[in-house]
């Protein structure tokens, strides 16, 4: 069994985001790029499955859509433990283009399980995984909080609105993972970093797929009203204010 993990790179989650060009473009100056947190977790889970011989997972590959400048992100995934990588050489403008590009990677290889994160922490789209599945006409399962492989079959726990379901789908399929899939992201050890240098990155050209949407402007969130402090000895006053002033209870 082969697993493909799709990874995007995003600004470090503590970045103070700023915009330039009259608030039409993200100011990338000084941004630290990291692997999207969910993609890091899905990579971790894929590697855990590979470590367990009973799953039959033999290879874990990663795929990234982006220009050559994003290769450090790919090397990081290789250092964490992926066996090889694919990069589709395009600066994508929307999720549709990303998914179209990832579909080329899937077609170029032999993958049984294709994993994507539930969203990227920059544009918060939650789009790529399901779009990819539709491009490939494959089944997709979203909001996966647990993934096992038993007897050559993926056994999935997914969150539904109001509970959980255990489901199976035939391979290949696209799994869109969320919290719970792995506990802590794996980090690269020195040996992994050394080995990553010689692992192959296959570069593919982007398919002809135009973007369907584009960001035209950004605005900072509305500043909130200053906090009103209530004396801890008089906590009942808070309840009174929530009831009569904010009118929320």
């Amino acid at each position, binding site marked *: 069994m082969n697993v493909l993990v799709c990874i995007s790179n995003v600004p470090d*989650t503590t*970045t*103070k*985001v700023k915009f330039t060009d009259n608030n039409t473009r993200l100011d990338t100056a000084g941004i630290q790029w990291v692997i999207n947190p969910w993609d890091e977790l899905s990579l971790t889970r894929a590697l855990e499955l590979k470590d367990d011989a009973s799953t039959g997972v033999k290879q874990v590959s990663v795929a990234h859509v982006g220009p050559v400048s994003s290769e450090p992100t790919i090397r990081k995934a290789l250092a964490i433990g992926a066996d090889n990588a694919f990069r589709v050489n395009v600066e994508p403008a*929307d*999720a*549709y283009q990303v*998914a179209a590009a990832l579909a080329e990677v899937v077609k170029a290889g032999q993958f049984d399980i294709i994993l994507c994160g539930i969203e990227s*922490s*920059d*544009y*918060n789209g*939650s*789009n790529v995984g*399901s*779009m990819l*599945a*539709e*491009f490939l*006409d494959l089944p*997709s*399962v*979203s*909001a996966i909080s647990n993934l096992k492989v038993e007897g050559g079959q993926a056994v999935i726990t997914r*969150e*539904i*609105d*109001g*509970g959980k*379901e*255990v*489901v*199976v*789908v*035939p391979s290949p399929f696209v799994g869109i993972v969320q*919290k*719970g899939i792995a506990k802590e992201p794996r980090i690269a050890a020195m040996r992994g970093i050394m080995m990553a240098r010689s692992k192959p990155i296959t570069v593919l050209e982007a398919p002809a797929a135009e973007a*369907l*949407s*584009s*960001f*035209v402007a*950004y*605005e*900072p*969130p509305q500043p*909130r009203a200053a*906090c*009103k*402090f*209530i004396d*801890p000895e008089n*906590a*009942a006053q*808070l*309840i009174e204010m*929530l*009831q009569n002033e904010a009118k*929320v*209870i």
Partner: protein
Amino acid sequence: MSVIIYAENWDGKFKKLTFELASYGAKVAEMLGTSLVAVSIGKVEESELKKLGKYGVQKVVTTDHELLRHLDSKAYTSLIARVAQKEGAKVIVMASNNAGKSIAPRLSVKLKAALGSGVNKLPLTTEPFVVSKKVFSGNAFAHLLLNTEVKIITLMQNSFDLAENAVEPVIENFSVELDGAEVKTVVKDVQKHEGKILLTDAEIVISGGRGMKSADNWQPILELAELLNAATACSRPVSDEGWRPHEEHTGQTGKIIAPNLYFAIGISGATQHLAGVSSSKYIVAINSDKSAPIFEAAQYGIVGDAMKVLPKLVEAVKEIKTK
């Protein structure tokens, strides 16, 4: 021409979220000068379907099939695509929840329709069609141009007020022929969170952080939640420690919620936590450290020991509830 909403049901019933979508769809239809159609999949009684009319739905296209009792993103997508084509949909609206997030992107590819996901208000303009959505986990809003003939929107829960606009809807049955080969997702087991108020549905949420010190200290939070008809939540370290279940974890890597009132108790207010709760209408912070960043996000704050403050709040709520 029409605007279409996907009216999801839970065990045959709609909920506030469904009516928010209908209210939103009705407004978008009005902006475009067209009518509003709802698609319902699964077993829903006619009397329930008719409730959509109260919020401006003029026509309900309903379909039920044994194989569609559980979400199969591919099969649901092709079904909604067929209805959209039949009804000449210009805009398709779904909830930004698990179901919406797994259907809308597939539909976007199938119909080659631009998708705006996690939209938080009405389109800013319809010519060109521009929507607003949260980006960078709540640190900014973006204006997104949807540049295709047909557009798809997923709407954030609790971001649009219900608006009544009663009409008598036409109910139309849409029959589908399906065989097992088209529905790939086989459900082996279902666990429902019975009787609990869902975190994403709740108007009031009481959330505890590492400052609560241990799982044993949760009793007053549970009591407060019970009294206020609220859901309970927690910060990430709390669910990592196993003090509370994973479903309660809010924040960038957990649930994103937008209740009317969010209590952050013993939570420092890290950006990753705020990413999940910053759309709350009111945030109340209770923290022993007066310089905790949570107070910058909160409108009401108490600087104090949660263990001492919580019992007082419980008493005060009991007091108003008995009045």
